[in-house]
């Protein structure tokens, strides 16, 4: 039990540190257009790298994952919002696993 608690505490610390360091200590606005362009692209690059190909292994089988991804892409293309896209993908995976 105390081993689990120690592990949870360590996990919390190493999760907090990378989140906190830059935001807490970099108060100055950087003027370099190179750095600002770089940072502008971070959300797109990070989310894209985390999504693909990991999404293919997120449901237990490739077919349902591909169908879920397809549904998410179409819903996102029509800008349906986070929740609709998530629920649509879940439903697509669920039904393709039942039917296929």
């Amino acid at each position, binding site marked *: 039990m105390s081993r689990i608690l120690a592990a949870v505490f360590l996990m919390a610390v190493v999760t907090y540190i990378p*989140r906190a360091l830059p935001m807490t200590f970099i108060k100055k606005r950087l003027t370099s257009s190179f750095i600002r362009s770089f940072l502008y692209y971070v959300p797109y690059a990070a989310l894209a790298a985390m999504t693909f190909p990991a999404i293919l292994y997120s449901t237990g089988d490739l077919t349902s994952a591909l169908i879920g991804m397809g549904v998410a892409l179409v819903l996102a293309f029509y800008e349906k919002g986070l929740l609709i896209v998530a629920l649509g993908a879940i439903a697509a995976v669920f039904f393709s696993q039942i039917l296929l």
Partner: protein
Amino acid sequence: MLFRDPDFRYGLKKGVPIALGYAPVAFTFGILAVSGGIPPSLAVLISLTNLTSAGQFAGTKLIIAGAPLFEIALTTLVINIRYLLMSFALSQKLLPNTSMLKRALISFGITDETFALAALEKDDISFSYMVGLICLPYWGWALGTALGAMVFSVLPGLVQNAMGIALYAMFIALIVPGGKKSRAVLAIVAIAVTISSLFTWVPGLKQVSAGWSTIIATLAACLAGAVFFPREEV
């Protein structure tokens, strides 16, 4: 008063879909933790103190496997190194006069999703906006974990499988609208996806952990973006 602050209310509203999207994922986490022998109260404590998906899933799997503390801490750290980049990006978006204490407080709530919404805001962001944005996802994450921990044996496996895709679908919902509007964003997404695919499928590169491959793919894609598609007005 925070509740009267329009920034706080605006952030709160923006956090609703994140919170609802978190619930099924946290639910899955609760199931994973409790089915591995972790007491429900500890599963919720993990969600309350870690507030992160990939990192706490990996850390918890290692706890269940009985891994040494050092390995648990190192694995979690590597998975979370990407937050350095996100926190850095947000440091440039937060109103410059925000105090260090306030900065230290809201940085606890930086997740892939809260970061993405905050970073994609048109204007600079304030402390109260971030507090509002973080509020509901935080409780959604904790509550989802508690529910999952309590009903873990009741839920059929098929529903559990289907919920695994929820976070990725949210990521897609965040990326695609930006890619529609900008060829540069589309190119950056293509580069990032190509690199992370290489790290997943190419022998030799496969040894690199998911945490590092995300960081390398992000750095490379953003570097290419800054070189080939520098932004004028930022």
